[in-house]
């Protein structure tokens, strides 16, 4: 997937080799902290990115930090971002986002004694695969018409559409039955999950940027999303036919939680093409329920706060490269990922008139 992003970047570079337009000049001298909250009219922006997260900790229901490495259950998350934005007007932007992620998670092994034997009767390994596209996002950003460049305010309504089914695939369990020489039955429960919420949801957001000085900016954004309907998925059950697992599924309903997140960012434009930033990010999910064995069980509240440090390099007027690291600070009922994010932003004005080379006549002649 990383190679795909790179190839995509090369494709875009090639696409626009000779597409110098009138509005390209806007981007040439525009520093990061000067960028408005919405794209310029006619500006098209591709934002592919890759993020790797090392999940070696999690926060439990009492917000205690659990070191997963001690249990041998640390995991790695790979996430690929694809965002396409377009400036419809100077104050109105439309965006679509579709992210893909995958993660393999091993849980703590379980040993079950039914008898008083030295060896356990059952030795169980749990392995969960999480893989797939997240829900598709379609959103807009509307900038309020304030008559100053020092401060900008924008609203960002949007909605999530589950383009792909989030029904998990059948498990790939395996078993090694006990025998005379091997008293323990060994089982690997291998579940296959999808990563999308599988739920239609609405989002409303607001963002602002303040530029108190020439090289500083303080920005903040807040989003709130909520589901608009119940969703349905399946859970898998199994039975053994000899030493072969056979599977069946049971449908269940659920409602995803309401999600609130906000971010405060402090940016410093060190030089015209280099910007560093420090962010604090907080997210909280509450409400919603999921049917478990027939009961509607309320989703446990979850929280996570992160500190993010990063930079952006303006490689060319059209290509910006940004990189961040996210450090978890606190949380509740959440994994605590340490993440490294690498993104490329590619900008062009594909529908504007191109500049034509003009022969300057020698007026002296």
């Amino acid at each position: 997937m990383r190679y795909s992003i790179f190839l995509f970047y090369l494709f875009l570079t090639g696409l626009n080799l000779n597409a110098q337009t009138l509005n390209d000049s806007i981007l040439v001298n525009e520093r990061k902290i000067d960028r408005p909250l919405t794209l310029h009219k006619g500006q098209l922006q591709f934002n592919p990115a890759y993020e790797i997260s090392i999940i070696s900790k999690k926060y439990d229901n009492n917000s205690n930090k659990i070191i997963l490495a001690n249990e041998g259950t640390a995991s790695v998350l790979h996430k690929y971002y694809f965002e396409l934005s377009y400036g419809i007007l100077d104050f109105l932007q439309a965006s679509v986002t579709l992210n893909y992620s995958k993660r393999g998670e091993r849980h703590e092994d379980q040993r079950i004694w039914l008898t008083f034997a030295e060896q356990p009767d059952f030795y169980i390994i749990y392995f969960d695969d999480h893989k797939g596209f997240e829900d598709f996002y379609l959103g807009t950003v509307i900038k309020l018409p304030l008559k100053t460049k020092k401060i900008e305010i924008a609203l960002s309504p949007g909605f999530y559409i589950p383009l792909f089914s989030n029904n998990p695939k059948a498990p790939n369990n395996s078993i090694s039955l006990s025998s005379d020489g091997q008293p323990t039955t060994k089982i690997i429960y291998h579940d296959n999950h999808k990563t999308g919420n599988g739920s239609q949801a609405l989002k409303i957001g607001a963002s602002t940027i303040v530029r108190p000085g020439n090289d500083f900016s303080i920005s903040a954004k807040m989003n709130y999303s909520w589901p608009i309907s119940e969703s349905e998925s399946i859970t898998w059950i199994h039975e053994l036919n000899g030493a072969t697992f056979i599977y069946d599924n049971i449908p269940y309903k659920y409602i995803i939680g309401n999600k609130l997140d906000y971010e405060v960012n402090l940016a410093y434009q060190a030089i015209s093409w280099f910007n560093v930033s420090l962010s604090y990010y907080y997210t909280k999910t509450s409400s919603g329920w999921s049917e478990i064995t027939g009961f509607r069980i309320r989703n446990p509240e979850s929280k996570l706060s992160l500190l993010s440090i990063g930079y952006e390099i303006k490689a060319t007027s059209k290509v910006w490269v940004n990189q961040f690291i996210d450090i978890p600070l606190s949380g509740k009922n959440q994994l605590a990922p340490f993440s490294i994010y690498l993104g490329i932003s590619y900008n062009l004005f594909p529908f504007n008139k191109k500049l034509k080379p003009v022969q300057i006549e020698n007026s002296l002649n």
Partner: protein
Amino acid sequence: MKYKKTPGITSILIVVAFYLFFTGCVKTENAIDPESIKTWEIYDKENGLGSDSIWTLAEDKEGNIWVGTMNNGVSKFDGKIWTIYNAASGLIDNSVLSIAQDGYSNMWFGTSGGLSILSNNEWINISDFGGVFALLKDYDDNMWLSTDYFPVLEYKNNEWFQFYDDECEWCNVVNVLFEDNERNIWLGSEADLKKLTGQTTASYTQSDGLPGSGIRSMHQDTWGNIWIASFGSPNVIKYSKGNFESISLSTGLSIEIVNSIASDNNGNVWFGLRFQGSIKYNGSVMERYSVKDGLPDKSVTKILKDKHGYLWFGTMSGGVAKYMPGLD
């Protein structure tokens, strides 16, 4: 940069957003606290149950839980209050072995002293059968009884029909009456297992794969398998597609007595054991639940899944436990 006037567009969007928010929010009340998963509620004499010694459990159409006790009649639980019905209030005997509700919402109680029927708060007592061990209401609302004096009785269209095996005396000691999803009636006796399909009767014995003698309980799981527990075997039997498969309960005992079998909503099969609590089977692994896990007694006499999905465990001397199973 100059902004063109855009009268009202922001206001409209804000109004639309608020409208969507207030109309689109999905109600999430009535969801249960996740902390209550896998918790046990114990009911015994101290909080209103008639006795701590339980023979059987049943649920009626209204969701009341009926608990047949060994020495103080039957107790009804409506979710809040226990009501006790015993010999003093009209029941024929205080030792209640079996409970069923007929098609007219009358409650039938099989006791050591005979049959009691509670109809519109009136008791009808029949002592002619002797003790009534098992009761069953079939799909057609006919009532089936296994009794002391008449091995198996069917009450159909206001008439009684008797089933008797002339060739096998112990086959007439019927412990279990069971109807499967295909409406076959099964009679589990001390010596065989009979399947009644219309006018046809099939009989299965140890030579057909039954590992032990003396059927104690039967149950059909989510997959359609029929589970059979017999006395004197450490194994249970899974009957599927005409085959009997013996499955070890893995307790390490040479003899295990399974008093009752039930399924939860997640497809797990639960076995109530005479001396070792309960075992949950998820299709591949047996897992024991004992007193240290929350059961009030090591001897489980009956397991019942109610219409909500709670599992009720009747015990020999610890009353009743209500359990909400989790996903694992």
